């Protein structure tokens, strides 16, 4: 799962808000990534590669990086894992 990040999404100076969230809360990311139901869901998403970076297509025409879909899934399915605001 993590190897998609090595492709560049969420790397360097161009970080999404969710990538910053993952950096602040790596334990949440690890916990979610280990969940079989999350793995099954994320593998079902359509992907596109733009400039050697892999994105997930959400809502038909929106490109999201690994962290963006991870936090989207967590908010919807496992809000108990979200860090306190």
């Amino acid at each position: 799962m993590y190897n998609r990040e090595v492709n560049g999404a969420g790397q360097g100076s161009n970080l999404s808000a969710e990538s910053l969230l993952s950096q602040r809360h790596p334990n949440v990311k690890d916990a979610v990534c280990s969940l079989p139901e999350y793995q099954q869901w994320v593998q079902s998403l359509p992907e596109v590669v733009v400039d050697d970076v892999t994105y997930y297509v959400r809502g038909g025409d929106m490109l999201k990086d690994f962290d963006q879909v991870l936090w989207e899934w967590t908010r919807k399915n496992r809000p108990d894992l979200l860090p306190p605001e």
Partner: protein
Amino acid sequence: MPETDKSLARALLESSPALKERMETNLYEHLRNRLRKVQIDGESYYIAEGDTLLDEDQLFFYAQQRQAYEKQLRADKAATDAGLGLMRLMGVTVTGERGLMGQLQGGKIVRWAPGVALSYCVLKSTFPSNEQYVKVGAAMSEATKAWEAACGVAFEYKADLDDSETVRPEGVLFTVRFLDTGGTFLAAAFFPNDPPDRRRVLIDPSYFSPDLKFDPVGILRHELGHVLGFRHEHIRSGAPPNCPDEDTTDTIDLTQYDPKSVMHYFCGDLGSKTLEITDMDKAGAQKVYGLPLNSFQLVGP
């Protein structure tokens, strides 16, 4: 008040005498009796809001606008009291309300900073044919004009950068490029708060299909709606169940639900294949970006 305003108000009433009779006059009569009057150069003016001078005709329209605004406030309050809240913030779910949706970050609406020119180029070398490049350039021109006519944004086409070899040329905010995704989408865009290296509008080969069911300009109007920060219209709880679902965290409803919105997919027998910017879209967009820039008579220092 400039003379032109006074003339406009008078001209409107003179051109349609019945107009005054059809409109509500309660507040107008009330203000006529209550407001202080002053004489300036032989003309009589009412003083509204402490320092606004209005002649008789201007006062009439002022009263109409005040009444309409107060009605809107009452409707909003009634909706909120009924549990049809206007906001859906992270961690707080307020259900029921639907409409053109904006995006929130840190509790604030995401938009481009005032004065930012949304400059772009159409990367010619990415397109398989000159015909496709020309078609997209023309569609972008129409789509950007439509948004400029809808709200206070300005796009700037930098055609001199169309021949750039790099996919991230300096001098434009975003690029428009061809990318073969195997029909994963017709076109895709970005949001204002996406990382800067994602500022591109992508065009899939399916956009050029002779079987395309949507207006090609409409598709770009929709994508540019995302560029301005607007989310899909069909993701509200009241949308047809067979419309695609999306995370609505950090979104804000800008208008009532509009099934014909430019941001609504064609799903559940709703939506529009022409993807026009509707009056409700304009109202929502103007809440974020204000009136179209050409609405203003700009006055220098």
